């Protein structure tokens, strides 16, 4: 999509070359494209309107530089402005002075509060604080059970609300219990509710005035459409929220709601949830979100993840091999080890601009279990086979399958995918990995 928007703008601006400066008239069609891109990303209508007006102000008067593409120049202005709007720094949790510090999660049904509560507990516990969890959801069947099962996995304290039916009372007792147990933070998971449901909103107000939270965080689904601002605005009006957590960011939603919330209610987005695993909670990065809304792929996140997981020396080696197209099955084995540290391959590759569209990817997203099987297949090959896959004929395939406890079909699939991967890797090296290294956007 970045390629798309940027390309579209380039086509529009090509006509302008030699015209000197951008003026209101000749930038009109470019602004139209940007507007559609933002609306397509679910940025709220009114936020888009104001935004386009501001970008126009900034772009008008700029020189149309012949050497670099003017389309990209405008995208850059847009990108910068988006980052500004989203707040330039990342925010931390505030715990306030009281112990235990209550943190309360609120939001619509199905937005991901319970999973987020546990992720947040894990995050807080990682900062060496003792965390207690309580579910005030007496409505959704098995909601409490869900929090309990997940919370136990991370070893947090969990309030047992057996026999209790009043959410306010549950919260009161839980805070007492947490204090007695010497917990420093208590995270309150509340039932999902509509902002227009007056009695349910009243319930939240009661809980709030009782426990006086250090933070009330609004949990928002990244896939939310235009209504996001109305809902969050209502929650803020009635409760006063301190920040936002965006969830389900591991999908392909462009997440315009994030920008809208920030612009309309002016509260920081503190975290981003990106997966069903308990550790899939990231600090929110405005510049990445800006790229994402424009559909540019989350290049920075990828770079950071790669930095964490990949041994740099090995990576250099690999790049060299890739350039020469010498990527062997042995290298694949090493890569697989690193990939399992990095997270699902599809997620990683999905973060690269344009990569989502590549068909071959469909065939090659191993999940963790699969990685183990694939590893076994490669391990059952001889070193010579690993270095030269071309010699692996039918009888060798049979032997490898037997050795790894898999089927010939699975061996075939692996080899097929490996060949695809080599092709793909070759494409990466055409400037791909290098530009990533510099940590730059492909402007």
């Amino acid at each position: 999509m970045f390629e798309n928007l940027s390309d579209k703008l380039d086509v529009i601006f090509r006509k302008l070359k030699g015209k000197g400066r951008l003026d209101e008239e000749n930038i009109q069609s470019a602004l139209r494209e940007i507007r559609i891109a933002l609306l397509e990303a679910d940025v709220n209508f009114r936020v888009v309107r104001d935004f386009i007006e501001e970008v126009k102000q900034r772009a008008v008067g700029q020189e149309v530089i012949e050497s670099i593409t003017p389309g990209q120049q405008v995208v850059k202005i847009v990108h910068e402005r988006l980052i500004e709007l989203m707040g330039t720094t990342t925010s931390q949790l505030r715990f306030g002075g009281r112990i235990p510090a209550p943190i309360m999660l609120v939001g619509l049904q199905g937005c991901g509060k319970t999973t987020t509560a546990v992720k947040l507990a894990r995050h807080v516990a990682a900062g060496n604080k003792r965390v207690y969890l309580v579910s005030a959801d007496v409505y959704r069947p098995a909601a409490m059970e869900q929090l309990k099962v997940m919370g136990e996995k991370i070893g947090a304290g969990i309030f047992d609300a057996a026999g209790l039916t009043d959410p306010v009372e549950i919260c009161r007792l839980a805070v007492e219990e947490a204090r007695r147990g010497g917990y420093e933070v208590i995270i309150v998971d509340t039932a999902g509710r509509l902002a227009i449901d007056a009695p349910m909103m009243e319930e939240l107000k009661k809980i709030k005035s009782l426990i006086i939270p250090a933070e009330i965080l609004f949990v928002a689904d990244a896939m939310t459409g235009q209504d996001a601002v109305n809902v969050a605005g209502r929650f803020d009006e009635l409760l006063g929220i301190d920040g936002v957590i965006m969830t389900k960011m591991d999908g392909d939603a462009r997440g315009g709601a994030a920008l809208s919330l920030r612009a309309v209610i002016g509260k920081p987005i503190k975290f981003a949830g990106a997966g069903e695993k308990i550790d899939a909670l990231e600090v929110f990065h405005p510049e990445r979100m800006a790229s994402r809304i424009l559909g540019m792929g989350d290049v920075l996140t990828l770079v950071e993840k790669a930095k964490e997981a990949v041994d740099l020396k090995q990576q250099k080696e690999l790049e060299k091999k890739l350039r020469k197209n010498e990527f062997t099955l042995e290298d694949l084995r090493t890569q697989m080890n690193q990939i399992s540290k990095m997270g699902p391959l599809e997620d990683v590759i999905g973060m690269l601009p344009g990569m989502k569209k590549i068909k071959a990817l469909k065939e090659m997203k191993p999940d963790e279990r699969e990685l183990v099987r694939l590893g076994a297949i490669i391990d059952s090959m001889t070193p010579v086979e690993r270095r030269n896959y071309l010699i692996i004929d039918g009888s060798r395939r049979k032997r490898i399958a037997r050795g790894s406890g898999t089927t010939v079909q699975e061996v075939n699939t692996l080899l097929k995918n490996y060949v695809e991967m080599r092709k793909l890797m070759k494409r990466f090296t055409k400037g791909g990995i290098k530009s990533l290294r510099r940590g730059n956007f492909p402007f």
Partner: protein
Amino acid sequence: MEEKNEKKGFFERLKSGLSKTRKLLMTDVDDIILGSKQIDQALFDELEERLIVADVGPSFTAELIESLREKVKRKELSSPEILRTALRETMRDILLKNEAPLVIPHDKIYTIMAVGVNGSGKTTTTGKMAHNFKEEGHQVTLVAADTFRAAAVEQLDLWAKRAGVKIVRQAENADPAAVVYDAMRIAREGKPEVIIVDTAGRLHTKTNLMEELKKMKRIMEREMPGAPDEVLLVLDATTGQNAIAQARMFQDAIGVTGLILTKLDGTSKGGVVVRIAKELGIPLRYIGVGEKIDDLQPFRAEAFVDALFETNH
């Protein structure tokens, strides 16, 4: 949760849900159009805003507006009133083509899979369907194929109890395909009934999870030729344009045969389904209008469009 059976009609329910919306939105389409006496740019602008704010999507909105402009040029539309009717009819016609309530035969085993992204309302909808089908005189069995999310089996079990229907379940973390296999085996021995498989929420971009879904479907097919009779995509009405990607990718992966739009009792209008209907032609089955067991209604194009455009107060 309270289970009062106050049987309001679908229309009223939808209306009362959507009327809450209006207190939040400043104006409504009809207000604007009725308010302006002539067809001018301001009218088109406001109309565009209303459609986009209802999540109809920018490109599709532009298309709709453009065709209205054409008609005005050709003098086919002469007043804001007629223009409003035309827009409404265009959208209604798109939806009408796809309005297709489920008709479940009584003389065979009828199998349904509920699929969708995390938190869209699959389990709740499964419970509501079980209740509805039972009221219609069907035997119903629920299948707890979400073995991944904590307490998901427990949640479905509670719904089965509420609806008074059977459930096939295994331990958490069991292979969902094995649960489905079990259910199909048991069903084959028994009388005609409706089998509803509640699957784990999954983002359409996670290919390994989509593979898991395909596997479940294959097993149903293998154990009972023709199964599943219905693959229902459960979509949250608060979703924006990403709903298109969801519909498309679930469609490509396992072939969606019907759509359910949940949470229409909220303030979102779910306008993206008009785009889904037009681009993908997926039959529209039900809407969810609350968390109670009888809060599931057949999808009605006319009422949906009315609700989308309805005048305030």
